[in-house]
């Protein structure tokens, strides 16, 4: 059993300043995850050189992999840091901020682009009102199973971080948003504006920017069938293309 764990953390003080690596060596405690180690650093912010430094800044909330906040690169791969167990990681453990989003500070990034994508694809049910309008449609169990899986997406960004087509200098919507169009286009009332969502997917940054690398589905912590969603939306836009050419 090792006595200590070494963390190499890529830090950045402000949005515009350069990044630098800092090493922390902390006592090994069984059953640690990356977050509990970051907390240990917070409670005793001393780097490997013995210098007292500002505690590492990261983003987290639920710590049980349902909120998506604590996503970062761990040993080069994107993962939630709450469910990254120290015992299972190669040492020293390298932590970096996600590379596809602007860094705010240290391991914190700004993922607004993903939430903006949800606006673009109109990921909502347009309701007539919140008064009592009776129950929703009856739906089959299999419909629920498909929709539930898609609806588990926590906008964490793993899919787009791993995607070779998504970068800070294009405006690709990414797998998460494309999968949400599938979810809403299958909802009994949200599908009333299915065509508008398809129009969005057929613009720059839409589904045609997918390069079929399929890293998204491998990286998704919730095992959402993202490639199936992309294929399904590919089918829907193909139909729309046909209608645009021959029926419009």
């Amino acid at each position, binding site marked *: 059993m090792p006595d200590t764990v070494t963390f190499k953390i890529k830090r950045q003080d402000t949005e515009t300043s350069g990044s630098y690596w800092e090493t922390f060596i902390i006592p090994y405690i069984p059953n640690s995850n990356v977050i509990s180690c970051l907390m240990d650093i917070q409670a005793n912010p001393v780097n490997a050189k013995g210098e007292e430094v500002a505690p590492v800044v990261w983003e987290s909330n639920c710590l049980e992999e349902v909120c998506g906040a604590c996503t970062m690169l761990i040993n080069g791969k994107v993962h939630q840091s709450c469910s990254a167990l120290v015992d299972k990681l190669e040492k020293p453990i390298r932590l970096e901020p996600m590379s596809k989003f602007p860094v705010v500070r240290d391991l914190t990034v700004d993922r607004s682009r993903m939430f903006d994508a949800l606006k673009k694809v109109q990921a909502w049910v347009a*309701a007539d009102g919140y008064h009592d309008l009776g*129950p929703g449609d009856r739906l089959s169990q299999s419909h629920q199973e498909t929709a539930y899986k898609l609806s588990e997406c926590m906008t964490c960004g793993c899919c787009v971080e791993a995607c070779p087509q998504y970068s800070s200098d294009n405006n690709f919507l990414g797998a998460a948003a494309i999968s949400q169009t599938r979810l809403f286009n299958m909802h009994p009332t949200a599908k009333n504006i299915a065509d508008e969502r398809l129009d969005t997917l057929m613009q720059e940054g839409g589904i045609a920017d997918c390069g079929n690398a399929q890293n998204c589905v491998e990286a998704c912590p919730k095992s959402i069938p993202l490639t199936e969603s992309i294929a399904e939306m590919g089918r829907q836009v193909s139909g729309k293309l046909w209608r645009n050419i021959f029926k419009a």
Partner: protein
Amino acid sequence: MSKQRVIVIGGGLAGLAATMKMAELGMSVLVVSFLPVKRSHSVCAQGGINGAVNIKGEGDSPDIHFYDTVKGGDFLAHQPLCKDMCHEAPYIINLMDRLGVTFNRTPEGNLDFRRFGGTLYHRTAFAGATTGQQLLYALDEQVRHFEVQGLVEKMEWHEYLGAVLNDDGRCVGAVIHNLRSGEIKAEKGDAVILATGGPGLVYGRSTNSMVCTGTAVTSAYLQGAKYGNGEFIQIHPSAIPGRDKLRLMSESARGEGGRVWVPRKAGDSRKPKEIPEKERFYFLEERYPLFGNLVPRDVGAREIYDICVNDKLGVHGEMKVYLDLTHHTREFLDHRLGGILEIYEKFTGVDPREEPMEIFPAVHYSMGGIWTDYTRTDEGLIDHQSPNNQMTSITGLYAAGEADYQYHGGNRLGANSLLSCIYTGLMMSPGVLNYINNLPEAAEDIPASVYSASVKKWQESYANIKSMNGKENPYALHREMAEEMISNVLIVRENSKLKSTLDKIDEFESRWKNIKCVDTSDWSNPVPSFINQLWNMIQLSKIITKGALLRDEFRGSHYKPEFDLHQPDDFRPETYLEFEKQKEDGQIKEDEFSPDHLAYMKRFSKNNIKWLKTTIATYRNGGPEISYEAVDTSLIDPRPRKYD
């Protein structure tokens, strides 16, 4: 009058429900949240949301739901609010269904319902085992739609520091701290709603998320708002141990047939699957034949404590018991509980479909919270147009969701919190708008000088925090404080320990003044915020601990063995109703009751007269001053609880 708007602090279920309802009614809303609202703590709710839709034809009704809720809360909940909530519940579930929540379905395509603690009915609608997440996402989507339409503005990565009060003491806005730039400024608002959730972080590790510090409501308390029932902290019977957090293992695991047991022999070192059936002690099923594994959480947590601490039967001699689902097929479990079983497997490396889970009790929810008002109708429901609903004792400052106090009494039933969050958000909205419509002037027209004083106070306060250069690390101090709370203000409470904890908290408060602000940078620096939050958590721990110390009784989650009324085993609650009726008629026929029953009922009655009251904490001279207030119990007569 200039354009008016409401500021909603917090983007969980309650905050977003209020936001979307007010936006629907045409009001501009500013949502302020620590994180992107989609990451709020509501996502952690797993099991489901209660509503007596009676899909299973069991004869369930909102009134039975109401009774279960009040009984579960040991009669400390405000009954008109509970009744209104339970009557609105079926409509709320239908609404969420319409908004796209992926609830599980029956073969015919209706919503499916499962059982939960504290009731005998299938009343809990659920979306896999991540119901809170699914409900929050549906509201998040609605609010995003309003955002696009320009009715809602979001300030994510911002923190609420305090209310701006005008000369009359009315809330006219909020002081907001930008967590990136560090800028502190005022936002004008004609009403402010605190929907900031619970205070789990006062206990350090709990099932709560990292933002659940209770800071916003404590800030309101420090500004003069009353705090209710602080000592009622729910301990959830089943959580997964962890160094950073105690992850919840939903009650739905038991709702779907999960069985709690320990080896009959203390220190049995065999693997759980090697222990034959007859050597397993299904203590909840044996002790509570009627409710079995689905006793309310306060009862469940106490029994686990009793088994592990008093009987020393905990797994491996630790504070742990088995929660066993292995009798179900994998398909069944994945379909109905997938999310939580995956979490267990990810964090422990053990497949709960093959091996019984090891679980233990953890701090989960605060029944108490900021005091809020309401207006009841003659039928015992709520007048939804009343501006009083959910208003704190500061005019214009409202609270909703876990931040408030009236719905769950001394103990909350599982799957009632998602309901109460959405219910309060929706219910209060028309009243808030009525309040705003009758204001003499819009916040927009109030002179800037009213705001600049508050802003200046907070700017100075943060500048002071940043210049703190003592010896204490704020995070280490927080751990120590939490350790103290966990040790002494948990399931079993003793006055001597509570007293010493109060002294300890005073010590922490003076040590807080010796903190070193370990990061003094200006950009995206969470440390000054945390130091401020720690101060508020210290104040909140005083409310909890002092409330617990002074409440000399056993009610709901607040268990003091010293004041246990010792209900006789063969006692039935109906007997007490008869006793009360006779008392009302003026003559108790003592020979109709067995002597030990009679003595118990007299103890119970006396205790209720003294303690069936809301604890009110008011900030005076640097600490909470405790007083008591009547509870509206006019609809269901209080009686002893019984679950066997």
